[in-house]
């Protein structure tokens, strides 16, 4: 049984932090929590990546985009919350490598937890944080602190450099020497990143956030086409080798 520790905390425009005691102390970066909001409407659970996990408490950052997240944001007190977590396959954690993490918008959320674990395994963490504008950046300090090198970019230039995640990645890929690139954000951005980092020696891991029916492998609603056939994003992912994904089908 899970317990919401405190009411949602606004961390930047439209983004909120939830702290939930799930009674489990182990999870992997890239795994998600599936939260039930309301009884029959909204009906399906809503999946959110784990932003951080300490002892039995997971943290989640969610962006308000519709019915469920609107209700979630308005929860006004701590208490019981119906959560299934942790779920899915997370990112692989390397050791002693030169890594680049690229987050777009709320897609930065799972990468914070990842950065922490990569750091603990003696990797160099280079971080590119991309957002729409300055107003949409959450916990910049935390990200800065965990990274060896930190790049900030906004589409409109209101914070950090002006440019999209793909614009800046294009420059970073030039000098490169990254052993592994991890990315999470809109599908179109991740598809772009996969295209940009062409050196086959650079591994690319993405975290897919397509629409889920169940999040536990029952419905096949989250199917993605890969070069090894159809996979279920919720149980085979959400983290995948970016090069196996058929991005064309995902972007339709």
């Amino acid at each position: 049984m899970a317990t919401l520790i405190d009411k949602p905390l606004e961390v930047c425009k439209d983004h909120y932090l939830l702290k939930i005691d799930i009674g489990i102390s182990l999870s992997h970066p890239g795994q998600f929590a599936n939260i039930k909001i309301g009884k029959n409407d909204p009906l399906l659970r809503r999946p959110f990546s784990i932003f951080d996990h300490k002892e039995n408490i997971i943290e989640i950052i969610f962006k308000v985009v519709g019915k469920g997240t609107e209700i979630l944001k308005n929860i006004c007190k701590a208490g019981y919350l119906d959560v299934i977590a942790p779920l899915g396959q997370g990112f692989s954690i390397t050791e002693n490598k030169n890594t680049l993490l690229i987050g777009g918008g709320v897609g930065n959320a799972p990468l914070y937890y990842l950065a922490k674990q990569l750091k603990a395994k003696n990797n160099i963490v280079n971080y590119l944080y991309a957002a729409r504008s300055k107003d949409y950046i959450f916990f910049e300090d935390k990200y800065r602190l965990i990274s060896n090198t930190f790049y900030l970019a906004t589409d409109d230039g209101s914070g950090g450099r002006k440019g999209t995640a793909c614009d800046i990645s294009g420059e970073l890929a030039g000098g490169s020497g990254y052993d592994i690139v991890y990315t999470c954000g809109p599908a179109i951005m991740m598809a772009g990143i996969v295209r940009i980092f062409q050196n086959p020696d650079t591994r690319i891991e993405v975290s897919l956030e397509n629409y889920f029916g169940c999040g536990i492998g029952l419905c096949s609603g989250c199917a993605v086409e890969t070069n090894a056939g159809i996979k279920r994003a919720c149980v085979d992912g959400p983290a995948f080798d970016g090069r196996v994904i058929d991005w064309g089908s995902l972007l339709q």
Partner: protein
Amino acid sequence: MNTSVKIGSLILKNPVTVASGTAGYGEELSAFVNLAELGAVFTKGLSLEPREGNKGPRIIETSSGVLNSIGLQNVGLKAFLKEKLPFLLSKNAVVIPNIAGHSIDENIELCKILSETEGISALELNVSCPNVEQGGMAFGRDIRTFSKLLRKARKATKGILIVKLSPNVDDVAAFAKAAEDFGADAVSAINTVLGMKIDVKSRKPYFLRKSAGLSGPAIKPIAVRIVYEIFERVNIPIIGLGGISCFEDMLEFIMAGASAVSIGTMNLVNPSVASDCIAKLEEYMVKEKINDINELVGIAHR
């Protein structure tokens, strides 16, 4: 206290089952429910060869329901027999495969092979899937095709044959009656209700196949009404499903005439809901001093 019900000669230890397409092959669900405790597990619609399912979006929530266009993605007969069935049997599940061939011949072959396979308790013939080009609902909406398929399926099936009916016809009970006349042991009602969503941004139908199947609490009143109507017309048992989300919902189906029930969409939301229903059933029977669950079947008609 007796919670067991009969589907033809098959005895289910209780009336609570999980519906085809919402329980996979039991592997994932077994993390949440003890499969042995369920009345039965209806596995995903099966074809001879594996199927990849439909392209494009496959599922989306609607008010108190979901629309799906999965398109019968399944592992195919060979992998089912080699990998999936042994797992289910190792968990002591009562296994009822859902047969969903493209053609009459494919369905007949599946009926034949599966009904002769050790460990399979019954077959559910799916003539009601709205999400495929060939087969599926096409068999379940035209009474002549339906009858032709059933006559052959009955012949080919050694054991218990259940027919899963489509709600997308004027008179579902007429199809149930035909199923009974052709020797089906039971009917399941209902499969998903045809629906559609328009994506207002692209100004096009959201699903590539345009229409999709609606399920979940939104369709429960339709399903209860259909079960009620079928009960008035046939003597074979009915497996009632459509939007069951809790024990009270399940009672409605039983009182309308269902001998057993299936939980579908709500497994996706609360994967332990079937277990909860079983626990509540026993409590309820004690409290209401009901010795045999069969006393309640169709009680709303009396």
